[in-house]
């Protein structure tokens, strides 16, 4: 694999790290399997894309994507908390609805952004190739998001959110309005995913209606894969695992696609993803006998 291909994989991995952080908030913190992300990722791309094309400042456009994602998350959480629709089904309903909404927002299936101002336009003046500057800028963004989420999860409100997912009855007994925390958490999760979508569209040069397909699986792959590499004992380590998992996933995919002898092509991406996720889910159970054997070898 060439250096440029490697950096490209890191770049995509960093963007999807935002998706992974969002999926971590819903699946792990709130234990709310939320498939809305398949719709909120392209929603972020659509909102940011159409605003940029209309001449709005790209930073403002990305900020708007954040709120659009939060609104999508609120709809899912509201369907679940207030109308008592099963969480999985509620999220599928929002996801399907977002397909239409995204088409409405974009006014068509694609919004080209080539030649438009993006949040990364300022990097062009540095005279460093974009395959270096883009991952560096994204790394800064992702690390800032990680720090913010870590601080949030260790705050009183964040701790209450973790309790909501871990033991809702206990949470209510501690004065936590669990419904409100589900609304807040799922909104935050989808806001992060939408920002990921907005940044993805800006690096790829287009917002596309099909961007969202399989976002949830990629996000889960990052979360689960990251946990296999870094034991998520604290919120700090959990968010670190999300980012590591997302980058490693992209590198693994790039390696698989680059290894000509396997004969894999770009259209095999979803198949590889499914195999990787299944592998990552099995890994923790496989590791135990191996660890045991290692311990035995050391005579313990």
């Amino acid at each position: 694999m060439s250096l440029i291909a490697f950096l490209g994989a890191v770049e995509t991995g960093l963007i999807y790290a935002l998706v992974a952080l969002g999926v971590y908030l819903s699946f792990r913190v709130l234990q709310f399997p939320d498939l809305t992300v398949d719709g909120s990722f392209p929603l972020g791309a659509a909102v940011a894309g159409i605003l940029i094309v209309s001449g709005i400042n790209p930073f403002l456009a990305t900020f708007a994507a954040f709120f659009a994602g939060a609104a999508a998350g609120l709809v899912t959480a509201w369907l679940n908390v207030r109308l008592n629709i099963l969480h999985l089904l509620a999220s599928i309903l929002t996801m399907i609805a977002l397909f239409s909404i995204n088409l409405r927002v974009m006014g068509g299936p694609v919004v080209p952004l080539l030649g438009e101002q993006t949040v990364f336009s300022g990097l062009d003046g540095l005279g460093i190739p974009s395959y270096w500057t883009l991952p560096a800028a994204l790394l800064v963004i992702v690390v800032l998001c990680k720090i913010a989420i870590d601080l949030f999860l260790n705050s009183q409100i964040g701790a209450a959110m973790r309790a909501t997912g871990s033991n809702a009855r206990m949470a209510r007994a501690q004065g936590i309005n669990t419904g409100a925390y589900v609304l807040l958490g799922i909104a935050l999760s989808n806001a992060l995913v939408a920002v990921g979508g907005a940044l993805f569209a800006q690096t790829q040069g287009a917002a596309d209606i099909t961007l969202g397909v399989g976002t949830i699986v990629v996000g889960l792959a990052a979360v689960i894969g990251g946990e296999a590499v870094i034991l998520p004992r604290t919120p700090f380590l959990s968010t670190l695992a999300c980012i590591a998992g997302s980058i490693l996933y992209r590198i693994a995919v790039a390696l698989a696609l680059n290894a000509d002898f396997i004969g894999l092509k770009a259209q095999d991406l979803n198949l590889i993803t499914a195999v990787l996720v299944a592998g990552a889910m099995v890994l923790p159970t496989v590791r135990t006998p191996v660890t045991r054997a290692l311990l035995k070898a050391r005579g313990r």
Partner: protein
Amino acid sequence: MIDVRSLKVTFNQGTPMESRALRGVDLHIPAGQFVAVIGSNGAGKTTFLNALSGEARPDTGRILIDDEDVTNWPAHRRSTLVARVFQDPMAGSCANLTIADNMGLAAARTGRRSLRPAVNRALREEFRAHLARLELGLENRLDDPMELLSGGQRQAVSLLMATIRPMKILLLDEHTAALDPKIAAFVLELTRRIVAEQKLTTLMVTHSMRQALDVGDRTVMLHEGRVVLDVIGEQRRGMKVEDLLRMFEKVRGQELDDDKLLLG
């Protein structure tokens, strides 16, 4: 001071599954009283606690805490006045959160939650001091996840969490029933100590007749959703487990073949 007036709770109302868990309970508990509640399975003990904590919604009747009508307050709002320890040691805390995180949640129970850190140095010192009194060595394990603790340890921490901030009534739902006898005795002793020290108004549901007569100042027996026995003071001191058992037989109108109630 707790005032419960003709409280009725029905589950699955209007369906063939309808069950009338509480059929009109009246109970007045003055501040500082420690009430032991006993009754056979299905007598409505747990439903009564759920109604007090806000988890179960009454059809009719009123619940007043210090003259404030809290009948329609949801559980999370009720928690400013009511603290609770569950029967299941796993139910009272979050397994994947650390001891410090769990106690931090309890310490924030009475206030408004903000973006301030959930646990700071001052709180850690406070938690450490509370845990040290358990003499279980937990004061050095603040950052261990709760799931590493035994059932008894978790229940002891749950009791600390329930009493770490002021409340109007402490609800104990057979909180020693799931523990082995030695640990159960320890948790019960700890309960007595904390309740006496803080002069807490307490309602303890128990399955053990001995506990119901030995612990606290008053014994209330529930049967089929009603109060059938309420003894206090001299009358209670004169009662023996056999008397309670006879009372049980009388209300059930049958021989007691379940000697589980005698144990403990």
